[in-house]
């Protein structure tokens, strides 16, 4: 599969202020196509705000960004983006398949394609047997899996997943990571935010955010080497200390 030229995401001096709080500060970041990219940082680091700006859900206070070659807000490429928000953004009073059908129709899939893809993605998230049940009757983990299935339904070129593995058991988490790998092998880009540093080691590239600023962007191994640490959590703490000293 040929990967199109240019990065999947390119942000230049992007910032977002909420009153006196600067949620994202002067952020310049590039995410190449065809990789699994981890956006790491504790709660309040600016990860979700960055995703919201990339989707056109929040207007930047400064700077600019391009997503799949389109300046944000990226309206024309939204059907090529899959988004799984941190909140449980599926309708509890609809069945699993009704939720998927809604999002499928909104991105312009035909009814036949929706039916076919629903089967595929529900098999992946292991919800095939629960497809006709109301989401409100499912466990927390199953609800998250429904949300992931909705993001994957239209086979998007770019997946923006905000904490996708919270509440998912280790076995299924491993299945997800294998699937993310398959997607990137097919030229898709997967951007995952997480505060589980160990999980981020599975990414091709990571970027570490702290209080809206970028601390580092490199491969997990390179980040550990540059900070002389054994794991990404220690690397993050070392970078925060270094930033404080500077």
């Amino acid at each position, binding site marked *: 599969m040929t990967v199109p030229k240019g990065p999947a995401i390119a942000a230049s001096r992007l910032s977002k202020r909420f009153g006196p709080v600067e949620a994202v500060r002067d952020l310049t970041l590039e995410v190449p196509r065809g990789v699994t990219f981890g956006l790491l940082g504790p709660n309040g680091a600016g990860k979700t705000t960055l995703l919201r700006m990339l989707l*056109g859900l929040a207007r930047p206070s400064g700077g600019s960004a391009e997503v799949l070659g389109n300046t944000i807000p990226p309206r024309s490429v939204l*059907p090529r983006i899959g988004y799984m928000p941190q909140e449980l*953004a599926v*309708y*509890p009073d*609809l*069945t699993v398949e009704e939720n998927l059908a*809604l999002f499928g129709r909104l*991105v312009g899939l035909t009814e036949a394609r929706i039916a076919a893809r629903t089967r595929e993605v529900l098999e992946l998230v292991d919800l095939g047997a629960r497809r006709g049940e109301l989401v409100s009757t499912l466990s927390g983990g199953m609800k998250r899996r429904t949300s992931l299935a909705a993001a994957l339904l239209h086979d998007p070129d770019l997946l923006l997943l905000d904490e996708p593995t919270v509440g998912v058991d280790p076995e299924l988490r491993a299945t997800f990571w294998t699937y993310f790998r398959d997607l990137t092998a097919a030229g898709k880009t997967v951007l995952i935010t997480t505060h589980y540093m160990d999980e981020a080691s599975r990414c091709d590239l990571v970027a570490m955010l702290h209080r809206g600023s970028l601390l580092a962007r490199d491969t997990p191994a390179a980040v550990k080497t540059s900070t002389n640490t054994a794991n990404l959590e220690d690397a993050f703490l070392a970078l925060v200390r270094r930033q404080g000293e500077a």
Partner: protein
Amino acid sequence: MNPRRALAVARKSLSQFRHDRRTLGFIVVMPLFMVVVFGFTFGGSVSHVRTLVVNDDSGSVASRILGNITGDTLDLVPATDLAAAREEVRLGRAWAILHFPANFTANVPLRTATVEVILDGTAPVIVGAVLGELRGAIEATLAGSGAPLTVQRDYVYGSEDTRSIDAFAPGVVGLAVLMVTTLISVIILVREKGGGLLERLFATPLRPSEFVLGHALALGTLAIFQSLVVLAAAILIFQVEIVGNLALAFAFLLLFAAGNQGLGIMMSAAARNELQAIQFIPVILFPSLLLTGVFFPLEAIPTAFRPFSYAVPLTYAADALKGIVLRGWGLGELGLDLVVLLLYDALMLFGATVLVRRQA
């Protein structure tokens, strides 16, 4: 504007209602309850009003008038002593006294005959009933005696059999549609906002205008379903007579429902949770109940308050529905109502489209 996306939103909302039987039940039962309660309380006329009669007339006219007071509105109770009768009223044991003086019949040809009516005026409805019955009986008595004045009734619309419930049933349908479409719209939006759903929807190519149109379609469908049930109940339970074109009435209800759901979306911008959303109930209910001519004609509203009546959209929806159902009016007679409701829709749908995006 992509109609398929708007339809997807409409389908989503209707599926939600389909799964939520309790809300669906509320949508149907609430207006039915309103029709039944208002039908039985306002719909019937006053009956068995204890009225004392002190007849001192030496002639026959008073007796003939009393003979013409028929039906069960007044319970006429003969009394001999006026002072004792007054005491009965004072003690709350009777509502009125009809006193015919000794020379009543003799004074009729001289046009100086006077019936004295002594009333407990604390219940205007009863006062009206007593005076109405008396006037009717006097008219009926004098009409047959070659009197110089007779009143001939000729109804352009309705008839002497038209009851209060016939008059307000169409307005109650409008009121029920208002309550349901506005409140459900506020609650849906607050729920979607809270659960991150609105944000999720707008992370797809869905446009705010498509979202608003989709919701308008879903709530319009619901409003039609609700109106069908309420009108069926009004016809079957209360034998309400429908003179006009029901399809036109439903077209007006759809127009009204579309504006209401826009209003609901706009209101939801000011509500952070469902508890705050239900605080809008009195804000919508009271002006609509009291100022819009649903139960009382606009002429019964003090002049100072009338501008408020004309500012409430239900005034026009209720006027149109009454015009269609009771008078058989068509678009020719309903021009003003149509224009105002179209303006209402345009304003509300535009406002909703602007505000819904900001809430994501």
